[in-house]
């Protein structure tokens, strides 16, 4: 019982119960609004009866050539609505848009190397660990770059894991 629709500014005033959660980051306004201004199709919110916000996903599409891909910046679900596969639904939506509308090659996301519950969830959704990014989080914790190939990448080349870890600087060079 979920209505999934585009995220809008007013939702910023309504997502409090989702964002007070310790694991959900509340970004600054220009961050959210840049995503809304540039990639509105990649920013969706799920609502429950009584117009309660259940969770949301934000992302973007970027890269060049065969690196043209969808990226999940944040996906979060309020505690009240967990264990109902909502994150999966939101992820599928973003994958769908990357695949069908933007014809991207793959979708990727970054996750803390220590966040096992999340890594397991993404693996269940078909993502593989493509590479490790050294000290990606505030120069401390490593990040894992996880990927899932889309239909345009017929041979699933984008998912073949790299043998060695990369540094955050190498990431910047790539896109």
């Amino acid at each position: 019982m979920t209505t999934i629709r585009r995220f809008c500014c007013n939702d910023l005033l309504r997502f409090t119960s989702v964002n007070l959660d310790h694991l959900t980051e509340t970004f600054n306004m220009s961050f959210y609004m840049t995503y809304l201004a540039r990639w509105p199709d990649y920013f969706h919110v799920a609502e429950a009866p009584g117009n309660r916000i259940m969770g949301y996903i934000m992302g973007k599409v970027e890269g060049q050539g065969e690196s043209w891909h969808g990226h999940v910046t944040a996906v979060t679900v309020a505690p009240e609505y967990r264990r109902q596969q909502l994150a999966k639904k939101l992820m599928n939506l973003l994958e769908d848009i990357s695949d069908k509308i933007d014809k991207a090659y793959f979708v990727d996301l970054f996750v803390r190397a220590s966040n096992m519950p999340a890594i397991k969830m993404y693996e269940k959704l078909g993502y593989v660990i493509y590479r490790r990014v050294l000290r990606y989080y505030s120069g401390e914790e490593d990040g894992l770059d996880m990927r899932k190939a889309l239909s345009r990448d017929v041979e699933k080349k984008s998912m073949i894991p790299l043998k060695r870890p990369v540094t955050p600087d190498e990431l910047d060079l790539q896109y």
Partner: protein
Amino acid sequence: MGSKFGMAGGIPERRVRPIWDAIDSRQFKTALKSSATLLSKFPNSPYALALKALILERMGKSEEALSVCLRAKELLYTNDSILMDDLTLSTLQIVFQRLDHLDLATSCYEHACGKFPNNLELMMGLFNCYVREYSFVKQQQTAIKMYKIVGEERFLLWAVCSIQLQVLCGNGGEKLLLLAEGLLKKHIASHSLHEPEALIVYISILEQQDKYGDAFEILSGKLGSLLMIEVDKLRIQGRLLARAGDYAAAASIFQKILELCPDDWECFLHYLSCLLEDDSSWCNGAISDPIHPPKCVNCKFSHLTDELFDSRISDASAFVQKLQAEANNDCARGPYLANLEIERRKHLFGKGDDDKLLEALMQYFFRFGHLACFTSDVEVFFQVLTPGKKMELVEKIMKRCDSDSHSTVPTKVLGQSITLFKVQEEIGNVFKVPVSEIEGSAVKMAEIYCKNLPLSKDLDPQESMHGEDLLSMACNALVQLFWRTRDLGYLLEAIMTLEFGLTIRRYVWQYKILLLHLYSHLGALSAAYEWYKSLEVKNILLETVSHHILPQMLISPLWVDLNNLLKDYLKFMDDHFRESADLTFLAYRHRNYSKVIEFVQFKERLQHSNQYLLARLEAPILQLKQNADNIEEEEGILDSLKCGVHFLELSSEIGCKSLTFNEDLQSRPWWTPTSEKNYLLGPFEGISYRPTENLTKERETNVRTVVEGRSLLPRMVYLSIHCASASLKENIETNGSTSNTATSSELKFLLERYARILGYTFSDAIEVVLGVSSGRKSSEAFSSDIVDWVTFAVFLNAWNLNSHELGLPYGDGCKPGTWHIVDSLLEKYIREKVRSMGPLICSPGSDLPVLVQLVTEPLAWHGLVIQSCIRSSVPTGKKKKKSGSADQSHSPLSHAIRDSIQSLCGTLEEVTEMVERTDQQVRE
């Protein structure tokens, strides 16, 4: 930053790049040096000057930066041979904007566009300037010019958005929409449309004019293919048909959506409304407040005949059965909840069957009762049940739970038992059962919590764990017990329960919020503030979450913390207002036109925030409070506040605008659904647990009154200081100047307004103050506004010092005027509060905040009046000596001041003793 042929602003790029590199790496000194070299080579280059200004601004040298910018501007205006490119202008624009001189940037661009009328790049820069200024009309004109030059779709849409903004946020009449429609039609005829967002804007222009049929036709035609997500298109089509009153067609569209997304709840509600020909959710203003939408849709369908209603309902039921049969995963709650909604509508139509609704609720419970969202899902369905039926439901669920414990998954069993508690809480049952029973269930909740801890042993400590809600509910029960019995032990147990929970899991925000309210109620504000801080509230949450702590802090002595709170909040808001236009332009550039409108409206919403308004007033008032012990410093602050004039304007400014309320009240505890309400302060009476839905109206009136009163304060403080000093000078020089008269009549005018806020005329208010201070009237005349009344008395005295309009008898023989009123009121109320104050821990909801306010506001303001009198009466410098001022120390006024000082000292001593006593108690 480079442009054509390796030139930048008419200068070879290789010369400019090192400067930009230095700026980017914040090496401003190096940058300034290179910039000097560059200027020696190109002394008349506006671009070189703009770069220098940019560096100066970054170094904090605003004035120098401005004068360099102005020189560049002058060169642009006077020297025809000078290159005028966007790079130069946009660099200047950056500096002008940071120096708060948007207008200068705009006039540079205007000038440039006048000189090179067909330069698209410059015109885009000009358009951007108008976006920053929110000049919608000029935006429109500029966009149309660009459209005429190149005929591009995007510029047409920029113009159309600018028109829409005039209608939605400006004073534009609706006729403008017709113009926008015409422009679009003409363009489509020759060029069609190519962007999905352009189509969305077109549809919205038509919708705003109630042209639903036209909009539907366009969407269903060739242009409709621009919307790639089928469901999105269907949703708009359904809405258009419904708004046009074609319910049958709309219902079939919504049915299609449900076949694609069976779990789409909003769509189901629309489907049902259309079947029943109910337009409540489509009427204009159906959702008047997008931030606090109603929990359930209102319904009206009285015009349907019984037969028609029955047949439509049976259609709906059949469709829902089909959806349920097709639902292949267990998580889709929609089709099951749909049954409940059908039963609810039947109820509202007068054809309800309680037993069927109960049965449907039972079924929903056994399918989804273990989910944490069960209660909030079904909340609206409880509302149509009678109290008796609600009880029956609880009993039935309990019985079935006991008899067939078919679920063996421990987390599911736990989930169901939590839901059972929640349902009882939700239906308000807990207010009727005996104390012992509530106590029992609080204990049971805590026991279940402890027993189930092992279920969460593998979870990350940052994750929410199973059964977390139990401790919140136990706390709710304990607080209710306190309300009923006034036994403080319950309150302390509630606190300990939550503290225990936070020891197990450090990050549970629900516990933290409950705790901070409990500590606030007990007067332990520092502890409350610590828990608030641990919520790590930042960015937009400052707007939605601050209400948990801000009102208490405003009347507390924790000035440093309050200052931080206000500063952070105001910084966030002001930063957003500064950058919002740039983000709007970003949306323009990326052709996401619907976001353009959204961003501008959102900025307006935040600008009208009631909390923002209050914070803008309270931040300077706090400064005045903090510095009231030193009149020179106070005057410095008043100077920086333009003597308080600005705040008077602020309050009249909001008079005509509606305020917005963006606070998230859902997260507040049941006993204080808004910051103005606290049930625990009153006697026990049953309440419904949830905050009633629309408190906005009530709050708006309240906020306006508060704002008006507070906005007068800085100015009254300023005028009082002047009246006091004028009164002394007048005594000395005996020639009242005209400026004194003006000061005094302005203060009188403000006092009249203040009296009106208190609900009295000026003369009646004086009567009340006189009556209460002399003991002729009881304190009840002040009701709960003691602080405001004493404040009124303080300023009244200051005014009377100069005007002598109140020809009051000289009190007890030697006190002139109105001094004794202030003295006796301050003495009376402060002492009263001090003496009635028991040990803090035993008297939750005590008068401490009132005492703090009395001391830090009216008493402090009165202190300033005294300081001002003394300063004026003490001869300073030679001039005074020469004039041979008469010795003032024996005048009646000096006596009055001396008495007042003595009275204040005595009062303050008592306060100090009380504070020391309390401090000692705490140490012991």
